[in-house]
């Protein structure tokens, strides 16, 4: 496995250093001039780049499918894993579910506080149109919460106080 000595007429490792931008400026200029004017150096630079590209494109083989099992089989019985995914980090889907559930709970709390505050305020005089608009808002919010419930399986309704009954039902 002995490497042949560098051929005397071929550029030496300064060329590789130049391709790596690792030469001092004056030396780099000298090598660049040589590459531009000397065919042997030009060819060598071209070969060096092609070699690097070929090596970089080489297939990276993957470990055999049973490799993990092999490794654990070589360990004592008390070193066997209980579950492969016991320590798995949260997946994006799990994180999204948690965020949605947190959002639903937050919305429920805001709604409950809002209802509580409005219930103990002196009753303002509202027009029928105002009441209809407010009712539409509440219905939209409830529909939105229901949808969140369906998506996240969070029980938002548990966090809600009893909803105020419409005036006509009292």
């Amino acid at each position, binding site marked *: 496995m002995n*490497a042949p000595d560098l051929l005397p007429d*071929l550029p030496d490792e300064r060329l*590789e250093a130049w391709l*790596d931008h690792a030469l001092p400026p004056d030396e780099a200029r000298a090598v660049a001039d040589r590459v531009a004017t000397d065919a042997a150096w030009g060819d060598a630079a071209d070969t060096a780049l092609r070699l690097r590209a070929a*090596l970089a494109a080489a297939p*990276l*083989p993957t470990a055999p499918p049973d*490799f*993990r099992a092999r*490794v654990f089989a070589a360990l004592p019985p008390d070193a066997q894993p209980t579950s492969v995914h016991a320590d798995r980090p949260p997946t994006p889907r799990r994180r999204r579910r948690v965020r949605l559930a947190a959002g639903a709970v937050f919305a429920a709390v805001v709604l409950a506080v809002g209802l509580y505050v409005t219930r103990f305020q002196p009753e303002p005089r509202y027009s029928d149109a105002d009441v209809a608009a407010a009712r539409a808002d509440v219905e939209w919010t409830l529909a939105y919460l229901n949808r969140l419930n369906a998506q996240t399986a969070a029980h938002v309704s548990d966090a809600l106080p009893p909803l105020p009954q419409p005036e006509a039902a009292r």
Partner: protein
Amino acid sequence: MPPAALDTALRLHQDRVYAFALYLVGDADAAADLAQTAFVRLWERGADVAEAAQRAWLLRTVRNAALDRFRRQRFDGTVADFDALEADDPSPLDQTETADLAAHAFAALDTLDEPYRSLVLLCDVQALAYADAASVLELPLNTVRVYLHRARARLRSAFFLRTRERA
């Protein structure tokens, strides 16, 4: 080291460690043995090896194990049976000319001594940063740079000789 931590290390590093072993010894079974040895030693060392240092530690261990193997058995194989190495996805290597070039490159790589061969494998095939290669080989960073330039120059000469012979 808890089994879960070893499992994580396997998921992160097993392909790279196995590939390095395969390129070093050129035999799939031997490469799997060497890679397995490295991971078992990692488990034995446990917390001594920081998580951030695991990759370099594993590559260093697999290389040392491969060198031990060379010494013991006077291993005379090639760097790798290039035809046996399969990529996961189609690559430019499918093209005859490029495959030829790569085959010559790996054959030329086989002529390099250590640590030059490992350096080219780590930096040019596995695309490790020079600092990481320095950590694997336990060499100063500047030495890695100098050795790598020398390794590439020797590789280029060997490649030139091979292609000239064939021509």
